């Protein structure tokens, strides 16, 4: 998975999302140890302080745990990961629905388009 950063939004917010994606998809599995801040920063080609900031936020939310001596790990609490995943999904869907609204589509129409696509087996 490569780090994709767009240039119109704060970098640390995008890093939070990208790390979450890696946790949800199992690149960083529950309970596993995260690379050092510097290594993660280098991989994403961002400033270490910005990476640090993103990790601090994830720590506040409980997804990431800092150990005094041995660096950071992903939480072992699968329920918490599931909850965060649903939260991120909700945000993405809200954003999507907002766009559909701008296109003048009603919820019903949107739902039927989604249904058609899934039935056609394109997804």
């Amino acid at each position, binding site marked *: 998975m490569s780090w994709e950063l767009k240039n119109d*939004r704060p970098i*640390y917010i995008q890093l939070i999302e990208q790390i979450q994606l890696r946790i949800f998809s199992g690149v960083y599995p529950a309970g596993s140890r995260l690379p050092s801040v510097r290594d993660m*920063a280098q991989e994403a*080609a*961002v400033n270490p*302080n910005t990476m640090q900031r993103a990790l601090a936020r994830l720590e506040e939310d409980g997804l990431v745990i800092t150990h005094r001596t041995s660096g950071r790990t992903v939480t072992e609490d699968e329920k918490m990961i599931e909850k965060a995943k649903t939260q991120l999904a909700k945000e993405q869907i809200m954003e999507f629905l907002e766009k559909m609204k701008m296109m003048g589509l009603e919820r019903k129409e949107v739902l039927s388009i989604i249904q058609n696509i899934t039935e056609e087996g394109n997804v």
Partner: protein
Amino acid sequence: MTPILECRGLTKKYGRKTALDNIDLKVERGQIVGLLGPNGSGKSTLIKLANELLTPTSGQIFIEGLEPGVETKKKISYLPERTYLNDWMKVHQLIGFFSDFYEDFNKEKAYDMLKSLNINPGDPLKSMSKGTKEKVQLILVMSREADLYLLDEPIGGVDPAARDYILRTILSNYKEDGTVIISTHLISEIENILDYVIFINQGKIHLTASVDEIRSDKGKSVDALFREVFKC
């Protein structure tokens, strides 16, 4: 803590032309800072004053509380806009030269970086392309464990793939609590690695802000903001 770089009322005039006009500035430790401005805005003048290659017309500049001199040069690793290295020297001779000269030079690091960029240490500088010379010079500069790295246009002459490598080199090699100041106008390439930016124009500081501040307050990239502010 004492800022790594501080300017107080710093002014530099070349004859009648004012290159820097009464600048006040503080840069803290452990940061990567972009010094951004159009051509002739005063970027290189500021960097040269920090290196004692120029002396102020009035005002002061301090490196960790000290005026530029022998002691501050130990702390600063400087990449000038133009090369000063001897063309006839081979890369391994240059490495020897640098490690004799600077106590904080890490030879091993230098050879590692040469290897990953496929540069042969036995090659003389004069046999290399402009871009490769620039890479060698950057390797020499980043192999020091300095408190302050002053990089004047480090990515100007190299291709985009090498730019990425160079940015990663900067990220992975600067000392933990060291500060990196990068002057450039290739903003979109470097803005992800910056903590904050200093916009400088006609010898004056136009703005200092963190990259994420600019993005969340103005909803645009540093590059876009720069184009707007310095529109010709």
